């Protein structure tokens, strides 16, 4: 009987093998447009960028002067590159951390019995949909020495604290990070708000009956339950911080000096203003490598989370 079944199974397997292979092939064909797009645009672009980084190239005409890894050697000794990299990472660390804490706090606030929750939700999220160019231009005006923010500070009696926020190297980068936090905290809020809505309220009620304080409920129950949301926000926040360009370009242009320069701004400057497309490509390769590390971490952790 067993032998008969095995033989039937074997026959069936032999019979259906070509059909299954054909079906697999068709399945791959469905993915072909996306594959062409990703490979043809993104991967080919990265490959061309990698190749360009090995040339001393102005970006005009075809690259001809092959210099091997010299751009990378120059880059390792370039203080503006290191400053830009440090600023980029600091920006990611600070803005993502603050947005997470504020977003979670606001989401908890809205999920408790607060009045006008709908209005609060809208108000918190509105800055996210504003164009960065509008936000940057508005804050540039608000933060001038005679701008509204300094007038407010003077109005409440703290005249000594008013200053040119974006023009002073001691405050310029912090001001830029604050603008970003103002704009994108609504995004963290939205994710947390949705995630908290999925949690069974009975869990919190049980904990309260057992005598847990609000802080204990948040720290020991809610925060671990939102692990997936933390992960998504951290990874997406870091990757979008790496791409951050418009806010710095439109507020300080990387100055005063190079105190607020970030990696994308420095790449832009090298390629467009200084005609160093080869060197700019080498800088871009570093940026892609960092983004690749974060993307890999995201995929690994998401997979583990799904299991």
């Amino acid at each position: 009987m067993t032998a008969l079944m095995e033989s039937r199974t074997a026959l069936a397997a032999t019979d259906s093998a070509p059909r299954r292979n054909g079906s697999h092939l068709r399945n791959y064909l469905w993915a072909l447009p996306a594959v062409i797009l990703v490979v043809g645009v993104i991967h080919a672009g990265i490959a061309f960028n990698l190749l360009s980084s090995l040339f001393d190239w102005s970006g005009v005409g075809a690259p001809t002067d092959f210099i091997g890894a010299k751009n990378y050697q120059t880059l390792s000794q370039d203080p503006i590159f290191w400053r830009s990299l440090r600023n980029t990472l600091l920006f990611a660390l600070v803005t993502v951390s603050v947005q997470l804490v504020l977003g979670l706090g606001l989401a908890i606030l809205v999920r408790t019995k607060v009045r006008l929750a709908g209005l609060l939700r809208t108000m918190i999220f509105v800055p996210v949909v504003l164009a960065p160019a509008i936000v940057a231009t508005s804050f540039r005006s608000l933060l001038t020495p005679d701008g509204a923010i300094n007038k407010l500070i003077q109005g409440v009696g703290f005249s000594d604290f008013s200053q040119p926020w974006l023009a002073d190297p001691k405050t310029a980068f912090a001001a830029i990070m604050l603008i970003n936090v103002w704009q994108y905290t609504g995004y963290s809020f939205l994710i947390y708000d949705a995630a908290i809505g999925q949690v069974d309220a009975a869990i919190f009620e049980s904990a309260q009956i057992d005598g847990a304080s609000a802080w204990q409920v948040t720290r020991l129950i809610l925060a671990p339950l939102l692990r997936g949301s933390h992960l998504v926000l951290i990874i997406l926040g870091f990757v979008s911080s790496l791409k951050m360009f418009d806010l710095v370009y439109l507020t300080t242009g990387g100055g005063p000096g190079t105190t607020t320069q970030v990696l994308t701004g420095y790449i832009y400057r090298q390629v467009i203003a200084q005609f160093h497309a080869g060197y700019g490509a080498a800088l871009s390769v570093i940026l892609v490598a960092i983004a690749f590390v974060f993307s890999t971490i995201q995929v690994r952790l998401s997979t583990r989370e799904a299991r």
Partner: protein
Amino acid sequence: MRRHARKGAALFAAAAMAMTALVGCSGSDKPSASDKVSLTWWGWNAFNQTQAIKEFQAANPNITVTYKQFAYNDYLTALRPGLAGGKGPDVFQVQPGDLVTNFGPLAVPVEDYLSKSLGSDWASKFNPEGLRQLQLKDKQVALPAYMSAAGLVYYNKKILDRFGLTVPTDFAAWKTVCATLKSKGVGCLAHGAKDAWANTDVFLSLINSIAPGKVYDAIAGKTSWTDPEFVQAMDAWHDLFTSGIIAPGAAAAAEYPDAQINFLEDKAAFIALGTWNTPATMTKTGQADAQKTVTKKIDGLFFSAPFPAPVAGGTPTKLFGGPDNGYAVSAKSSKQDAAFKFMEFLTAGKGQDIQAAGGNIPAITSIKVATTDVIDPRQAADIEKQQASLTQLVGARQIPYSDLTTALGDALSGVAAGTTKPADALAQVEAASKSVTRS
């Protein structure tokens, strides 16, 4: 499934046939001699391009010109593939310095065409500095649109008169004027230190007053940026920010529009700009255009003066500059005859009259800038003086080496912000200068 496959194959075949037909059409689109020629013209700030195209097309009915305007940085991005790939402009705008260095090789030298068109002495018609700064390896790769120079401050005479002040000629006098203005709630020198070009213009005004022309030796690598004269100029630059001549907050302000708005709206009495600022401040037409960029009615009375000397009793700088911008013909253009004709119109023909009528100083020396449109009759003499000064320039505005331009820009920004000491900043510029490959 098979039916779907057939349908797909039919669609593909139809698309392929359509593509073939389109390719066929474009292949047979070569214009014959009697056909109309369409030119594309790219730029970022071509002056009164509508009038120029209208007049050119009226004189050349078989040529149509389409102007494509870009923001400056977008222009640089678009021009690279445009010129290299042959799908770009027939005529394109350039600036002395980096743009000539990098895009000059993709332009057709003009000598042969102009010799035939204007005669062998064609060069004598132009301001010599206008031609020199648009040459690359002894070839004239572009021609000047109009001339401009920096080394000036524009001032609002109504503000100065209101407080009984006069135009300062040195820093000591300027600081006194600024203190008075500050006490009256008016800013002194409106400046956008976020813009490296604006900082460089002021620094060149300082060094060209302290040691006229020496900076051009440093640019050429013949002298050091750390020499005492440069330290003195960098100290003076720092002094502008610490003495109250330039107000706090300038480091995050752009020259356009921030500083210019402050100046036009009577919030500041001075601005350090070049002769290109004359139309917006001294002519009725130019000021009407400028009015669109500000909310308050422009009611100041504006004049220009040499940028004050940093040394007490010193001589202010002579003007420095050259061609404000110019035009070139793409080597990949398939319509070079028409393109040259249009470029000649812009740079040596009626295009120069359009520039002169608008208050810009023509590159053709025989054409005088118009002074009939001035707001106040006294401004006519000011404009005429500017045009005369453009024949005695101390040097250029642009540095032809992008790395040196950037290093100087960073140095000036760092000193202005107080993050870099003047001597250290100059040492960084000198290091950049040594690494530059000069042709």
